[in-house]
């Protein structure tokens, strides 16, 4: 069936101008020839192979790919939590070695400090950076305000919902003033409604704060809705399939998810992630447990 969607590569002049402006910006994150091999006793496993891409300042770049293709490994290498086997990661032309506050990270499981309140958590990076207690507190409050949790300052993480916890995690990561915000499936554990609210929140925050976002997801709609560009990986070994420019203007709102451009990109991602229509139910040989001819057709 032909849904007569536009080519996902065609861009309006407005969008094209936007991408030109984006690419004219300095490169914030430069990944070249990145490879990762996990050695094991039997045979070593190549998880990532020759990954290369650049993220420009204040860009929102998503990485998607099938489960196990090495997305988490990739973002952990960028964060400095994992060592690359080959290739380089440069932040503003400086090779990264080990983790540092210039690359903040938000994890899927929130990883908030359970012994500290919301305020304590968000204050943590500020105190690490040597701010005095009162300045750190005031600044932490600003970040808590930005993520809309001013009334929950004194709550412990366990008293918050998943969405609120993730907002605290974002506030805490941003309070360290990172140049790049790394997010590994941050909304993966949230229900659909909370998730779409959080997406809107994130875009809003990203607009207000000078930060470049590298975002991992396996949710195709989420990737299209949020991103300027989407890096599509394939599995075994993890390699770049395509770098897609999302032909939608920013700022985005939920209406964009129904535009032909959105759906065109969405369909393209589907083709890349699930090749040759493997969702074809007819192929399954399945035991019949309901009488034949009883279906509602």
């Amino acid at each position, binding site marked *: 069936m032909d849904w007569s969607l536009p080519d996902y590569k065609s861009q309006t002049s407005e969008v094209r101008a936007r991408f030109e402006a984006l690419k004219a910006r300095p490169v914030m994150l430069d990944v070249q020839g990145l490879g990762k091999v996990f050695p094991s006793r039997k045979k070593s496993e190549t998880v990532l192979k020759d990954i290369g891409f650049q993220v420009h300042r204040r860009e929102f770049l998503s990485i998607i790919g099938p489960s196990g293709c090495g997305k988490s490994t990739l973002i952990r290498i960028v964060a400095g939590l994992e060592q690359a086997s080959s290739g380089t990661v440069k932040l503003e032309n400086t090779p990264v070695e080990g983790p540092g506050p210039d690359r903040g990270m938000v994890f899927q499981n929130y990883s908030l400090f359970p012994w500290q309140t919301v305020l304590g958590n968000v204050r943590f990076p500020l105190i690490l950076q040597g701010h005095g207690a009162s300045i750190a507190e005031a600044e932490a409050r600003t970040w808590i305000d930005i993520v809309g949790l001013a009334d929950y300052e004194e709550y412990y993480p*366990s008293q918050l919902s998943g969405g609120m916890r993730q907002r605290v995690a974002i506030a805490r990561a941003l309070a360290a003033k990172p140049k790049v915000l790394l997010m590994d499936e941050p909304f993966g554990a949230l229900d659909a409604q909370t998730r779409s609210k959080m997406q809107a929140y994130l875009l809003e925050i990203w607009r207000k704060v000078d930060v470049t976002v590298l975002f991992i997801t396996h949710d195709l709609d989420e990737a299209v809705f949020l991103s300027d560009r989407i890096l599509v990986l394939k599995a075994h070994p993890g390699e770049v399939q395509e770098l897609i420019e999302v032909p939608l203007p920013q700022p985005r709102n939920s209406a964009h998810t129904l535009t032909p451009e959105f759906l065109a990109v969405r369909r393209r991602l589907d083709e890349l992630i699930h090749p040759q229509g493997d969702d074809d139910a007819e192929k399954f040989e399945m035991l019949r447990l309901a009488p034949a001819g009883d279906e509602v057709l």
Partner: protein
Amino acid sequence: MKIPGFQPRKPLTGRQKWILTLLSFVLPVGLWSVVSYVPFVWHPVILVRSVGGSSALEQGERVDPAFFQAENQKLAAEGKPLAAGLRANPIFLPSPGRVFEAFFKAFTTPPRRVGDPWLAESLWHSIQIIFWGFFLSSLIGVPLGILAGTYGFFKGLFEPFIEFFRYLPAPAFGALTVAIWGINDGPKIAIIFIGTFFQQVLVISNTTAKCDTTLLEAAQTMGARGVRLLSSVVIPSVLPDVYRDQRILLGWAWTYLIVSEVVGTSSGITFFIDQQAKYREYANVFAAISMIGLIGIATDMVLGWLGRFFFPWRRLEGKEA
């Protein structure tokens, strides 16, 4: 019908908990009362009330029933007055009433021999031994455990030797500790230290190793490194569990008390119990033993309560403090 308390992993209501707590004490004390007060249950000996014409029996003595009967038959044959007696329990099992009485009188009863310590003094001495042994052990053991649980270097360096040493029974060091520290409190504290320390390092190291790695990673991406990771992330994250471990270890330390108190000169509650047993005051023995139990459980309850105060977030997570 659903029997309360028999659904897997379902917590009891407050009322059910109280009833069971009560029962857990009432049942053993009840059993003890039955054995003590119901005459035909057990009561294997005869308590001699009056000796009659016998010269072999003594008033207040507990004798074998067969011997008592044989003696009475002999008296009957000789035409002498018969001895009278009651069936009774052996002297080492006093009745609950006698023990409760001893318990409440214990602190006001002066020692039989002038110069011997009062019960309160004995207990206080024991508590001091435990305190110093456990305190010194914790002072070194907890930091070492935390280091070993965090850094591979310390784990590799400490744990093999400690694994070996913890199999050496603490009482085996009695003679050695006396040779080093003399006969007073030194060796006693040392025994408690030896009994606690090696387990402590391993237990705390194990607990510390359970610190959630993603918390460490999150802190690293915010710029924490080195000792800061230890002080700002590892320690606060494992502190409630270390605290719980310490409560359990303190219980273990008590089990080394009796051993330590017979090292060198006998002292503390052990000396008190020994003396009472010598005087055959078994009610006092039971009272002193249950006092140890009470002190133990009271300490643990206070520590548990303090734990809830120190670590308020634990209860919100539904975890024991």
